[in-house]
């Protein structure tokens, strides 16, 4: 049984003109445990919405999302929050670190809503991403590359089964992008987490053995050029 199984998933939004705008229409998608899959999608292809649905941040209009055997669409919002806190790590393009918190506190905060704080593990993760000397720095005191490394550590803090990465290198230069991507992939591998990454960056996509075209998976997305 796959770790993640999405079936007949639909999500639409109301446009300002009152019309319904379908954003996600996925008939079938699966991700095995510890697998690393990249979804290729241009802007507007419903990447973030799909990841938000999988993370339980958004509730689908219809369809099912099974994560680790649990049917997410049947869960209440607090139950989805709990599932997200314990089984999912989320890496954003803009890092989404809390500015008032230190590097270590950002990682600890990622743990506090899940299984609970494990200071030792948080420090080990930060050491793993090369930030053992920046534990008490504020995010704004770090470079963008370092900030994304904090976000990687935070995503892995709860020992998740699945890490979702939404354009994680979008705000980084080439060198930092390569380094961040390697860290994400190694971190997931070392912690036994599956990785579902969405990106439009060919260089990033080229790093993955399995790349799927979001336009093919998501019928609501406009057909785009396929990246092989």
């Amino acid at each position: 049984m796959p770790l993640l199984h999405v079936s007949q998933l639909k999500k639409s939004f109301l446009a300002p003109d009152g019309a319904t705008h379908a954003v996600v229409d996925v008939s079938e998608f699966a991700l095995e445990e510890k697998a690393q899959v990249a979804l290729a999608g241009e802007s507007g292809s419903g990447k973030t919405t799909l990841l938000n649905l999988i993370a339980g941040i958004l509730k689908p209009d219809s369809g099912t999302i099974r994560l680790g055997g649990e049917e997410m669409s049947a869960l209440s919002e607090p139950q989805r929050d709990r599932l997200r806190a314990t089984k999912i790590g989320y890496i954003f393009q803009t890092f989404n670190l809390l500015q008032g918190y230190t590097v270590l506190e950002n990682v600890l905060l990622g743990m506090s809503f899940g299984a609970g704080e494990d200071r030792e593990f948080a420090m080990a993760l930060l050491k793993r991403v090369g930030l053992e000397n920046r534990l008490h720095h504020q995010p704004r005191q770090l470079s963008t590359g370092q900030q994304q490394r904090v976000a990687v550590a935070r995503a892995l803090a709860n020992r998740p089964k699945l890490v979702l990465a939404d354009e994680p290198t979008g705000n980084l230069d080439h060198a930092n992008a390569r380094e961040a991507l390697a860290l994400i992939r190694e971190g997931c591998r070392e912690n036994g987490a599956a990785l579902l990454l969405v990106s439009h960056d060919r260089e990033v996509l080229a790093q993955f053995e399995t790349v799927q075209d979001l336009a093919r998976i998501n019928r609501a997305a406009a057909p785009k050029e396929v990246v092989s």
Partner: protein
Amino acid sequence: MGCTVGLLSNKTFSNAVRLVVKSLRQHALSTSVTAASIALAGGLLMAVWVVKSESQKTFTGVTGGFDAVLGARSSQLQLVLNSIFHLEASPGNLANADYLDLKKDTRVALAVPIAVGDNFHGYRLVGTTTEMLTDVEFAPGKKFKVREGGRVFDPNLREAVVGSFAARKLGLKYGDTFQPFHGLIFNERDKHEEEYVVVGVLEPSNTPADRVIWISLAGIQNMAGHDPKTATDVSAVLVKLRSPIAGKQLELMYNKQGNRLTFAWPIAQIMAQLFDKIGWMDRVLALIAYLVALVATGSVLASIYNSMNERRREIAILRALGARRGTIFSAVVLESAAISAIGMAVAFGIYGVIVSVVAAVIREQTGVVIDPLTLHPVLLLAPAGMIALGALAGVVPAWKAYRTDVAENLVPVS
């Protein structure tokens, strides 16, 4: 807050507390400003209540050790204020014979005459008999005590015993001499020729007697410039009764059957009537304090509500990390309550300052001492009420936070 805690799991609560502590630090400036407004409001609220109730309790408890006052026909309140509190003008004199009649009355345990009409730099000279300083218990078991080295004045000499507060303010000490001024209000042109010597300073009694310069009755009666025709008159007679029934009987005799004199009895009840008369002022002050408290609570609401827009992304991130809506809601309510709690902690300092200043003013004006450290239920109820109001004020911004759309506020959105 207790209710909020009861509805939340321990983990949700501890997460909320963590977020609150961080948020208070992050928004230190607005937290300080808002907490300061709560502190001012809370300090004012507590001070108004305590000053009001303590002054009422203290003033109605000040009788000077007497049950009644006999004086010229006037209002009972004026008589009490003039002869017990040494405030207000004397309503007039009564003949020495009236004093002697009362003194001889078997229903009277003690009758002490006083005569007023002179001052020294605004502090009243009160002529009386030595019984006032030797026999009168101004409070149960407490008599006036002259400081070591001094003694009670000789009724035949121009000697004075100075109350502790007056002595301190005037700088008078044993052996000093002074010339009184005519009238109850100081006017340097009205200096009497007579010179008095200070033979004693009283230990503090925390009563209006502390503001008085005591001399012999004859001293006031025969002061140069006073009308020789009234030289034997007294201003009032302070009366200690043998029984409450005697008070009722004498009140009937002087107030209902006679029309020359006024018998003010019982003193405590007359003072209570004063507070009833100025009760509207209490209510206005209390209303102002309540309004200030409400405005301060509103400032907590406005401060947190206005910060919600800039906090939306932070809330969305927390929610994306797995924070529940309930955690976010309770964090905002707790933050609001915490700001009120910080404010109320500071409010005790402000309360202390206000009450100390008011107590000093009351003591200076009346000699009555209000203890600023008195424990009063409002010192518990006001903080509890303000914290509860603060928590309530947090509900509106908390609801806004609760409804924050996570996906919409996590950028970028494709």
